[in-house]
């Protein structure tokens, strides 16, 4: 907040409080007790007159107390422009405190499963209900509530794994995240349009879906130059690199000619964000159990 607005707000707030204070005392008469006087305000409407009596004491002091409360509050808490308050209270600090309280409270619940082996954990109904809730809150935005993914987000319920579906790899993926990178035109940046058509047909032929058998045959040569380093000679991919298996029915970006052509032409960049600094180790352990259970019923 700029100095001008800071002063603007402070002047209005303090001015109002002291204005009320002045009004209270200025209108208060010399009487100090709750007594009724014969004195009137001096006006009369159809014979109806108004007495000029002070506020009852309790009421008067309530107003005074309200003003004092306001001033004390404004001294302790941030309320006057840029004034930070004597207590140093901020929204962030309060939020952090509440997060800490929640961790202290729920940490134990997660901790009871912290050392259970993941395959065993995936059979535990209570833990999996917890896992389902963790998944719904942290993972379902991309992978879907049912874990079936969508374009660009892997399906976790099938047997196709980019990096591997064993417990340790799932844990590793959750903790540190993954960076998927398929360069445009693979390792052959000078690929021609014809060669793109050929290699796409060759890739389709792995799962017997080639549109043009001739092109597919020609594509084997392009594949050997552009793709084999990561996807392997037989197209089964490489989990160490996160290179997908091209021979199965699982396609992260679609299995049609157009989709694959786009993938070859422009490459793919994908990120699985690391959860290690967002969630506790125990939470990640339970989540790994839940992810494991999705494909290992």
């Amino acid at each position, binding site marked *: 907040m700029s100095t001008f607005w800071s002063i603007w707000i402070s002047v209005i707030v303090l001015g109002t409080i002291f204005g009320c204070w002045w009004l209270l005392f200025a209108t208060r008469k010399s009487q100090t007790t*709750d007594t*009724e006087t*014969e004195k009137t305000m001096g006006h009369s409407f159809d014979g109806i007159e108004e007495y000029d009596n002070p506020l009852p004491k309790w009421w008067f002091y309530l107003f005074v107390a309200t003003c004092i409360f306001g001033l004390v509050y404004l001294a302790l808490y941030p309320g006057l422009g840029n004034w930070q308050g004597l207590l140093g209270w901020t929204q962030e600090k309060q939020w952090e405190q509440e997060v800490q309280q929640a961790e202290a409270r729920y940490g134990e619940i997660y901790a009871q499963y912290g050392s259970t082996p993941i395959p065993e954990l995936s059979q535990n109904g209570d833990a999996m209900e917890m896992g389902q809730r963790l998944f*719904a809150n942290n993972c*379902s935005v991309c*992978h879907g509530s*049912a874990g079936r993914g969508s*374009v660009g987000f892997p399906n976790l319920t099938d047997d196709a794994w980019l990096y591997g579906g064993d417990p340790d790899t799932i844990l590793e993926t959750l903790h540190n995240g993954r960076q998927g990178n398929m360069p445009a035109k693979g390792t052959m940046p000078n690929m021609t349009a014809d060669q793109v058509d050929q290699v796409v047909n060759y890739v389709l032929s792995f799962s017997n879906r080639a549109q043009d058998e001739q092109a597919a045959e020609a594509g084997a040569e392009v594949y050997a130059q552009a793709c084999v380093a990561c996807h392997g000679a037989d197209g089964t991919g490489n989990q160490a690199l996160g290179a997908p298996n091209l021979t199965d029915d699982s396609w992260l970006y*679609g299995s049609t000619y157009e989709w694959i052509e786009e993938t070859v032409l422009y490459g793919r960049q994908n990120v699985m964000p690391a959860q290690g600094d967002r969630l506790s180790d125990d939470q990640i352990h339970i989540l790994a159990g839940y992810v494991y259970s999705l494909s290992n019923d």
Partner: protein
Amino acid sequence: MSSQIPVRQVDPNTDGPSDNKKNKPETVELYASRKKIYVREVKGLFQRIRNVSLTALMGMYFLFVWITVDGDPLIHFDLPAREFHLFTMTFFPQDFFLLAAMLIICAFGLFFITTLFGRVWCGYTCPQTVWTFIFMWVEERIEGSRNKRMKLDRAPNSPEKMARKSAKHAAWLLIALATGVTFVGYFYPIRDLLGDLATLNANGWAYFWVGFFTVATYLNAGWMREQVCLYMCPYARFQSVMFDRNTRIVSYDPNRGEPRGSRKKSADPEELGLGDCIDCGLCVQVCPTGIDIRDGLQYECIGCALCIDACDSVMDKMDYPRGLIRYTTENELEGRPSKLLRPRTFGYGALLMLMIGAVVITIATRVPVELDVIRDRGALFSYNNNGWIENTYTLKINNMAEVPRDFRIELGGIDSARLLRGQEPVQVDPTAQRSVPVVVEVNPEDLSDINTAIIFRIEALDNAEITDETDSRFVGPRPR
């Protein structure tokens, strides 16, 4: 209303400012302090009726909290779990409209009764009355009769006065504490509560509320008493809209009683030119709100009928017929017959029956399950390997029964819709909610729009009537 409104004489010289202020006649106190009412104890028919109702109500209040059915309390308002257990039924926040309906029933019931019989609620059942009468009974036992109490209050401090006063307040506080603990016991199972309170293990709020209700009971029944009825209770203020000439009210019969005056029992009132009222003032001394019933119908009158009991006892002593003060109606006082059945009776009666019927039907046909469907927001839809379209939903199944149940999920609205995940029945614990992710696949040929209605239905395996359905949308590609 009666033809004449009785006038109360107010003498400014005796009722006004105290002596030291007489020098300054232009000032008077704005605040009228309460004049303590010393209620004289009286026995009689209506006091006996009240003792019965009071015992029954207090008995229910103090006993129900201890009753358990199969280990669960009969009445338990479980606020942290947001479950309200009443007589083996469980209600949830979404049933709160039933509470509103119950309150409407209570209101109409009160109007109905008031129209017919006046303020019997105030006189016999209102907690303010019930606890006040208990406190007054205790006061009478410890400090003695009305006269003794007045004398004791006027007397200078003495060990005996201190002893009696502290005994009274201790007894009051004890009753108030029992009241407070019992009240909190409806929210916090009483056996746990007593144990936790005694071992200082209870939640801070438990101590707060026990303390709050103890202090409130003590102040209300010990100190505030009739002031609650006179200044705080709205019911007294709108009684006039429910009263008519046929409403039963506690009333003095001025035709019979006036002119009032004292006389010897042997004297013939007719010779003296007097009515039946001997002006003994007992009816005023026994009145818990400190009014004179002979001034006519007043909003202060809570209809407790203590003045009837008092007057009847005097009439018996004088060998006059009872009923100089009695339950009567304005019509009867004026010598006309009073009718029980009249448009108001039917109007309130019909509304009351209607509301009771509506609540009974609602509770009887209440299905203890609820289904909510939340469509995934991350992805609109996806193709699967068959070329069918998938949508993902989260079903929230709320089992409101006290037993675990298995539910089958069914689809409707789209012919080819099939569940890919969620075919197996889902078990939901008693009074618990469970979220179930389900995946629905649909043949794209079935979709004529990007957005099609789909119906989710759940049905309990053990009882086909326990079912609920909710509609949602199925999203697909724009049809070509």
